[in-house]
């Protein structure tokens, strides 16, 4: 019998199903329906903005990253998610700035996939929000009168110039209206997504479905969204009971970026805790900060900041929520 050159490798010699790229591309796939719905509401602007953010993210990963890391699909997710957090009328050059910053500073500077501390998409968005506060808070009304084809803002503003005012209808977001004008928005509109807001924060129901698919396949830790939802519902519900001027739990849950944030961004594997207990605490922290910022803060929406702040706490949470090692007794007082 001739001996083929045998393989020698370390145990275990078998591997379980899904590889990292599989997970990532599945997330990409689950985001596509959300992009499609955004396009349904916001027309070509939605596609342009997401495409610009994604292209920028991918190109940055390609140019500055290690060879071959594009295949894992994570840069595509970053780009898509960044795009989904932007207003439809944003100039494309700004979307590109966000994508480049998110990947270059938010991810590659830390060593690339898996090593970053802050959610790259959100860091990119926070950068944009701080850089271009006006453009980033100009919310076009979805499905406004006019043709589907019309741009919802000056998407094609020349790089480094301010967007021109285009006669697309804009209005305050449901949260802004609630906070600054005490005007609630109908829950059905929030659930279906027929409200203003960034591209991906319009349809809570769809996000819930797509995220649920990922949770079922164990691509994301369901404890994080569960903990966020529970915390927000309890806090908002309680405050609403105390003072009905505060918005109720359902409004809180379905308005703004909470759904997208809880399902897709707080759950980013890399920037959330590795321990399950840590995930519960992380989610509770995000929920708490969202409610605090929305109710007592200066900003109408706080999901992005809540997640970023909790991201910063993740290394600490990981340490703190380390499970008790099998057979290790809780420390007994010295005898």
């Amino acid at each position, binding site marked *: 019998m001739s001996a083929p050159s045998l393989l020698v490798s370390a145990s275990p010699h078998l591997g379980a199903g899904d590889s990292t790229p599989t997970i990532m591309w599945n997330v990409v796939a689950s985001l596509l329906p959300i992009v499609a719905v955004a396009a349904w509401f916001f027309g070509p602007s939605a596609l342009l903005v997401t495409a610009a953010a994604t292209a920028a993210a991918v190109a940055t990963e390609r140019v500055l990253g290690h060879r071959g890391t594009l295949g894992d699909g994570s840069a595509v997710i970053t780009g898509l998610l960044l795009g989904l957090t932007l207003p439809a009328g944003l100039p494309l050059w700004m979307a590109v700035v966000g994508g480049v910053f998110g990947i270059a500073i938010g991810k590659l500077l830390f060593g690339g996939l898996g*090593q970053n501390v*802050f959610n790259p998409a959100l860091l990119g968005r926070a950068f944009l929000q701080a850089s271009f506060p006006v453009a980033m808070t100009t919310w076009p009304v979805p499905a406004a009168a006019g043709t589907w084809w019309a741009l919802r803002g000056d998407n094609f503003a020349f790089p480094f110039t301010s967007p021109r005012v285009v006669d697309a209808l804009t209005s305050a977001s449901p949260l802004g209206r609630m906070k600054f004008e005490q005007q609630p928005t109908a829950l059905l509109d929030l659930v279906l997504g027929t409200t203003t807001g960034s591209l991906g924060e319009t349809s809570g129901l769809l996000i819930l479905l797509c995220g649920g698919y990922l949770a079922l396949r164990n691509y994301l830790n369901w404890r994080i969204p569960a903990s966020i939802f529970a915390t927000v519902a309890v806090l908002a519900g309680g405050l609403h009971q105390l003072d009905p001027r505060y918005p109720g739990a359902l409004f809180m849950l379905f308005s703004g970026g909470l759904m997208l944030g809880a399902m897709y961004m707080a759950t980013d594997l890399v920037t959330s805790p590795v321990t399950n207990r840590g995930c519960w605490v992380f989610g509770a922290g995000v929920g708490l900060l969202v409610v605090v910022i929305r109710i007592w803060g200066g900003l109408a929406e706080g999901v992005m*900041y809540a997640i970023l702040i909790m991201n910063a706490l993740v290394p600490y949470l990981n340490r703190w929520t380390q499970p008790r090692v099998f057979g290790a007794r809780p420390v007994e007082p010295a005898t």
Partner: protein
Amino acid sequence: MMSDLTWIFVSSMVVNNFTLMLFLGLCPFLGVSGKIDTALRMGAANTFVLLITAMAVWALNTFVLPYAPYLRLIAFIIVIASLVQIVEMVIKKLSPALFRALGIYLPLITTNCAILALAIFQTNRSYTFLQGLVFALGSGAGLALALVLMASIRESVELADVPAVAKGTALVLMIAGSLSLAFMGFAGLLSSS
């Protein structure tokens, strides 16, 4: 007016965090944020010195400086420095354990601009004794928070394959910038009606 102690505390701790928003105390922030353990101790020692400073400054402002306003800066720096020195010696004598935990950071803090800045802010804003203490407590908590966050992040980033050019201070500053960006979420906290 700004008598609201809660607001002073929250504002000095997160909204106008000394380190992340006002760039005060960057030396310890960059220098002693490598390990969570030391960061915590540094934060505690810092808060301690801030509290002492607040009291001393209140006394100076009330009893000495009205008569010699031009000595403000010199008086602050000398009084703070000598107070810290004395406290250090006292701790060393009374509790060697506490000294080992916190004392070694005290000299580092003397020449740290957060302390002097606290004195100046407190004077400029004419805080009362109580307000001054709350302000010191809030700023100290803010410094400790920033330090601990930075330390835990640095501990985890130490295991990452950071590109060679970015290793060291550039990365730490990027993290600080990101933290500062995240802390912008606290803007306006408790100040809107």
